[in-house]
């Protein structure tokens, strides 16, 4: 008989014992460790996935922050550009205004200088005209210019119209009653001789019909002229008329030059 019943029974028992021992010492331990490892790996994967999700969320958050910052930066840049543009406009306007002011100042200075020049020119011209006229009259006509001027002034006094004469008379009388007799003044550009003074006193008395004694003063600014004045009235003769003509001519020249320079700009 190939099959031995006793051996079969013993082998069955042996095998069952082996199953029990291997289960206890091998399979349970190995399976537990495999399961634990799988569980741990699964946990680690889950953690890694969670971390990846967190990282993605963080990345998204950072991206949003960056986009927000970029938008803010662009807004600020645009705002600054607008402000700069506005400031530039303001500054340009201020600069133009300043240029205009400087230009006006310059024009005023030019005007002042022109006025001063004309005044000086007038004074020098009068002096020269006076000197030349005096010399010409002295040498050719044997006549003093001052005398001629006084004659011309006396003629002017005599030829005064009635209204002006009355106004002057009234003004001279008013001054006389208020303060002193010397309220009437005779100003000349040159010193007067006694004869000339007497002549002038006589003519003033005739004009005012009053006992007025005018005071005599030398005033170089009159330039070759003579004037009789009270508080508010004045009768004068000088080279003013000639000089006015000369001044107008020079002013015209100045104006022409200015227009020419403007055209050139």
């Amino acid at each position: 008989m190939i099959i031995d019943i006793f051996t079969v029974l013993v082998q069955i028992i042996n095998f069952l014992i082996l199953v029990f021992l291997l289960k206890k010492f091998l399979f349970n331990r190995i399976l537990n460790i495999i399961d634990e490892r799988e569980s741990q790996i699964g946990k680690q994967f889950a953690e890694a996935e969670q971390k990846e999700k967190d990282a993605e969320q963080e990345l998204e958050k950072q991206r949003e922050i960056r986009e927000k910052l970029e938008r803010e930066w662009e807004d600020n840049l645009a705002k600054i550009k607008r402000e700069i543009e506005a400031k530039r406009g303001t500054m340009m306007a201020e600069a133009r205004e300043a240029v205009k002011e400087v230009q006006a100042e310059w024009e005023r200075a030019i005007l002042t200088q022109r006025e001063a020049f004309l005044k000086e020119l007038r004074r020098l011209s009068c002096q020269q005209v006076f000197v030349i006229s005096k010399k010409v009259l002295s040498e050719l006509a044997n006549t003093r210019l001052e005398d001629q001027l006084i004659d011309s002034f006396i003629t002017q006094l005599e030829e005064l119209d009635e209204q002006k004469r009355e106004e002057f008379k009234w003004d001279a009388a008013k001054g006389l009653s208020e303060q002193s007799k010397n309220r009437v003044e005779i100003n000349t550009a040159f010193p007067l001789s006694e004869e000339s003074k007497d002549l002038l006193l006589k003519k003033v008395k005739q004009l005012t019909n009053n006992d007025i004694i005018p005071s005599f003063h030398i005033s170089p600014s009159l330039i070759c002229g003579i004037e009789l004045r009270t508080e508010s009235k004045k009768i004068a003769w000088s080279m003013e008329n000639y000089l006015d003509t000369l001044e107008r001519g020079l002013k015209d020249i100045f104006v022409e030059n200015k227009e020419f320079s403007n055209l050139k700009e």
Partner: protein
Amino acid sequence: MEITPDNIIYWQWEGFHLNATIISTWLVMLVLLLISWLATRNLVMRPKISRWQVSLEVVIGFIREQIKEITQQNPDPFIPFLGSLFLFISVSNLLDIIPGFRPPTGSLSTTTALAVCVFFAIPIFGIARAGFKNYFKQYLEPSVLMLPFNIIGEFSRTLALAVRLFGNIMSGSLIAGILLIIAPLFLPIIMQVFGLLIGQIQAYIFTILATVYIGSAAQAENELKMKKEKEGSENNE
């Protein structure tokens, strides 16, 4: 030359005796337990795992995957039984290479004992999974008339299991012995190598078949569930 190691008796007392089959079985058991103890005394999760542990993890992982593929169920309840079966047969056949060692699987008594264990394991696992009634209902499927054939099937496949393993291993050892007499050089070595390969294949076949039988018995529960689900869905429609 003895066909079966059962006939090699070392000690005898009245009805009890210790033959080569029992002794070699104890040796195989000792080797397996020694390896298990060596491998599992310092089990670690990581980082450095011992070679013993890796080897056993690979073997047990392979067994687990195979059982899972075949049964389509949680393999853990089956592993101790089927794993022990595979390891026992495999190591027995592997030790055949040691001169003078007679593998216990070359004894029809051993293979019969293993087949009897499988024979009883099938209803135990089946009842544990599907319940007493559902399990025995399988023998009446598809008709009551099939009951005798089903019972014969159960016995015949158990017998086939035992004889297949015995025949293969016994013939391997026997051929090696005969060739050793005829041509003592080289040829027996080649035959030994073939014997090792055949031994491992037989271990695999025996375990796979046992798995298929146990798995199909345990499958009754799933079939019942599927049937109920089908009926439920038809009622809903």
